């Protein structure tokens, strides 16, 4: 009952206006409630919508430098110790050079692919229907792109007409 009474006291008035009987609030705090706050720095006269966001350039990775370590390396063990098996006959010693490739980097040359001879198709004296279709599609694509550009520019100009204000 007391709550109801307090409510009626709070809501007294002509129904459309709420009267602060108990707690008068600062009007500035009421203004702050509806305010968007302070304007961020950097507001300019002409504000155009952001058009392009530049992507950050990827860092340039230096190309690997191939040094002499990729060259064949003669193993000193094989040079110093001739391979003599138990049952191989005694032969005049000929040093065996074994090549050992250190594969740390990818190979210098890509794997060989068979190079197929490219023969252009024979040119007909008159364009084929497929050629006509491709050409017409390209013309339509160019036309639609130009129309869309024109519409966008007109919209942008109409949008930028108003903010040039004092």
């Amino acid at each position, binding site marked *: 009952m007391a709550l109801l009474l307090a409510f009626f006291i709070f809501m007294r*008035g002509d129904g*459309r*206006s*709420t*009267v*602060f*009987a108990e707690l*008068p*609030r*600062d*009007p*500035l705090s*009421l*203004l*702050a*409630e*509806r*305010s*968007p*706050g*302070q*304007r*961020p*720095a*950097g*507001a*300019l*006269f002409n*504000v155009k919508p952001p058009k392009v966001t530049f992507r950050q350039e990827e860092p340039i990775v230096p190309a690997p430098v191939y040094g002499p370590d990729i060259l064949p390396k003669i193993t000193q063990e094989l040079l110093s110790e001739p391979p003599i098996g138990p049952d191989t006959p005694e032969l005049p010693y000929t040093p065996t050079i074994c090549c050992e490739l250190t594969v740390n980097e990818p190979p210098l040359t890509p794997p060989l692919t068979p190079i197929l001879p490219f023969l252009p198709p024979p040119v*007909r004296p*008159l364009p*084929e*229907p497929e050629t*006509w*279709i491709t050409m*017409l*599609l390209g013309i*339509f694509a160019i*036309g*639609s792109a130009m*129309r*869309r550009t024109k*519409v*966008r520019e007109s*919209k942008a100009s109409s*949008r930028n*007409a*108003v*903010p*040039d*204000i*004092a």
Partner: protein
Amino acid sequence: MSFDIRSLALIFGLLASAVAAFFAFQPEPQPVERIVRIVEPSDTGTRLAYSDGNYPVLTLPDGSKQPIRSVLDISERLRFGQAVWDDRDVPDGPMLVRVDLSRQLVSVFRGGHEIGSTIILYGAASKPTPTGMFKVLQKSADYHSRTYDAPMPYMLRLTSDGVAIHGSDVRERAATHGCIGVPLDFARHLYAAMSLGDRVAIVKAD
């Protein structure tokens, strides 16, 4: 090179689809949505009124005191381009426009009752809006700025060097050359309510 019936059908089918795609991808111009809530007499709204003898007082830049009798009940945060105008049952009285630059707000008082409020645009950092007390020096409903070659509808001139309140396209992160921009509908109501010599207070902070 054979134009038999199948290739012809292929050509016309692709042409028709190309034409259909050409018309289907046309962007339709969409109107920019600006929500303006100008309270008309048929609307219902509330007003936060202070009780008699309990009026808070706003100190204006010239040192004068302005008692506030009621404030518009705008419970939510206003959006850019949104405006509220409600002068029903508000008696005649001296007009006062309080422009709050730090809150980006304007409040229109008639006899201490707030009758309108919206978000404003004000001068950029390179051309700031002056603060202080001003009076309406000139009214022009269809003004066109010679300096900026721009329409300034419902212009209320405040200073002789060109600072005014006028209707403009209020958007976020936009600024003016020193004027105070308000939405167009709000500017129309303000223009109708203000007369020459009425006071305008422009404050930067409390």
